[in-house]
């Protein structure tokens, strides 16, 4: 049986100067690169496919399969191939890639080199959100060190393989986490999603074949190459293989990063985190960020893998477990998320641009206790006009907290109307609030 917690990506985060090349090399860093360069690129692809690694950015698409969508090189019309790492971590509650890149940027850089080799890309980009200065510093320095050591550049480790890697800082736009919006942004444009098809594998960056993977996905590749596909597939569940970082935040005693096989439950994780804040009970939580429908106490034993969470009516997403106890007003929480989606809607499509605006209008009056019970139906109707009708997943995600909160907490919305305002005291939810006796 696999252990409850299985640090792989997080294993060196406590090491002295873990972000430097010497520290990373001391733990066997860049050994996997030699292993990969000794294999045919196709075999590395097969290995990642066989490991069962699925996208860690939320969608859970098998990484190796995604790589396989690149069209075979066309000698008549040779186009460069690109690897783009999505390190634009911005989904509310998600906080795994940022500490990974701060503590061990070389894990990601090594993953980029191996993955680029596997897909025969000669250029790669790490698109990191701009609002994390120290992470940008650490990534840039790691890339510089990797060039100096011959892990990047021409004829890497004498293999004849060349790769250029650029760290690119964004400028504050949640939508750029959507892979085609990210590509537009990386091309120096407004970050708005593109119509698909063509998919990025066929026409991505500069209309060339492009693979876009989440930072944690790519960072998982060196360990897979080093330890083998079976090693990775042997952890987690049958369809959700391997380990992942689970990020606990909010009202638990020890919030933080817990790396575990997929399929762990929130009950176990909360136990590891020392339990819910003293004197309180779990009220609601997000399994994978604010765009994934809320869960409640009744979902404590849902297995946190792609299948288990989907069967229970939500999505595993980014394993961003935001924990809210009974002091928190769900209407306030949902209103704030909705304001976020309104602010971040890129404006390209009408359902999302207008819809998120209207959602905020209705939620605001409900939160103030000034609406009517019919407003709940209005909200659901608005969600129905956004979900599946928006250009990208941002609009879909905006409806998740609303529909799920009405499903589980309809009475709490109504209580706002009955009392003419919010029945909760926000002061009791803060990190410095006194424990309830």
């Amino acid at each position: 049986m696999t252990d409850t917690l299985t640090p792989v990506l997080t294993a060196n985060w406590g090491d002295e100067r873990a972000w430097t090349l010497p520290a990373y090399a001391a733990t066997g860093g860049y050994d996997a690169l030699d292993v990969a360069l000794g294999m045919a690129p196709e075999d590395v692809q097969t290995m990642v496919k066989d490991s069962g690694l699925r996208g860690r950015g939320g969608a859970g698409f098998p990484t190796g399969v995604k790589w396989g969508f690149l069209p075979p090189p066309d000698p008549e019309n040779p186009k460069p191939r690109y690897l783009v790492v999505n390190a634009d971590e911005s989904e509310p509650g998600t906080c795994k890639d940022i500490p990974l890149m701060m503590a061990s940027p070389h894990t990601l850089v090594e993953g980029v080199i191996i993955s680029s080799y596997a897909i025969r890309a000669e250029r790669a980009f790490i698109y990191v959100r701009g609002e994390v200065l120290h992470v940008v510093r650490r990534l840039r320095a790691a890339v510089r060190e990797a060039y100096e050591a011959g892990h990047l550049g021409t004829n890497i480790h004498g293999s004849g393989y060349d790769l250029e890697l650029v760290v690119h800082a964004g400028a504050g736009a949640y939508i750029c986490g959507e892979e085609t919006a990210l590509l537009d942004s990386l091309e120096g444009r407004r970050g708005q999603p593109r119509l698909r098809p063509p998919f990025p594998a066929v026409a991505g960056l500069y209309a060339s074949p492009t693979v876009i993977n989440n930072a944690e996905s790519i960072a998982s590749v060196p360990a897979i190459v080093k330890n083998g596909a079976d090693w990775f597939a042997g952890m987690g569940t049958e369809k959700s293989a391997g380990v992942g970082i689970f990020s606990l935040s909010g009202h638990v005693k020890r919030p933080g990063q817990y790396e575990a096989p997929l399929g762990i439950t929130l009950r176990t994780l909360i136990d590891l985190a020392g339990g819910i804040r003293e004197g309180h009970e779990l009220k609601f939580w997000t399994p994978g960020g604010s765009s994934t429908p809320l869960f409640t106490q009744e979902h404590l034993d849902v297995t946190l893998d792609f299948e288990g969470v989907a069967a229970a009516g939500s999505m595993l997403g980014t394993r961003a477990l935001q924990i809210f106890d009974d002091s928190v007003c769900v209407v306030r929480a949902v209103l704030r998320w909705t304001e976020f989606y309104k602010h971040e809607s890129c404006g390209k499509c009408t359902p999302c641009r207008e819809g998120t605006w209207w959602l905020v209008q209705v939620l605001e009056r409900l939160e103030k206790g000034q609406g009517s019970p019919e407003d709940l139906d209005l909200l659901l109707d608005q969600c129905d006009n956004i979900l599946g009708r928006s250009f990208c997943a941002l609009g879909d995600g905006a409806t998740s907290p609303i529909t799920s909160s009405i499903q589980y907490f309809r009475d709490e919305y109504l209580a706002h109307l009955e009392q003419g305002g919010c029945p909760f005291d926000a002061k009791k939810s803060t990190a410095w609030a006194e424990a309830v006796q």
Partner: protein
Amino acid sequence: MSLAPETFDELREIAARYPQARSGLLPMLHLVQSVEGRVTPEGIQACADVLGLTPAEVSGVATFYTMYKRHPVGTHHVGVCTNTLCAVMGGDEIFACLREKLEVGNDETTADGSITLEHIECNAACDYAPVVMVNWEFFDNQTPESASQLVDDLREGREVVASRGARITSWREAERVLAGFEDGLVDEGPAAGSASRVGLELARERGWAAPGDAHGSSDLPEELPEAVEVADTRRAESETIAEEASDD
């Protein structure tokens, strides 16, 4: 006033990092902010000249992204996360406190030009909520009191060091780093904060590891066999507990 020739050189240097020059536009706008203190019409013109775009095209990009400011930003940019998790954990109270203390509204700058205050969206540090960012450096687990002290220190010019990051320089210098120019502060600050390591430390304490991984139990120092023994015992104990639990 047009930008200095050295700035034009750096703008070209940024554009040259990419297979297609226009990809450099976002970092170029960061550089404009570091030089000009905001995205100025001159800065937009400069980017347009370097990339062969119209100022309208550059403007269209600059106005899309929240980090680009068209009004002058103070010496320091203070961002308070008020997305749901941080708001609930006290971010709303911190933001209200700073607004009152600094006598500014959202995205406004103090009369002395020292601080621009803004409420920001989730900054990927939820396990350290409530979070405040200064020039995009992390200040973890803030309270109204600590945030208030923080802005006092910034205004008085005292040395301020991020919770997970470097000593604070200025917003403009931060923008230069985002444009792709290193500032030599990479080795300041820890690898990871305590919340980032909490799962790792718990695993070490209980002897848990990924099977056969180089970082896991198998790489315990060989010269300390007793350590291995202790770890193995712990692991055996924890497995026994797990088995007992699963029998229930």
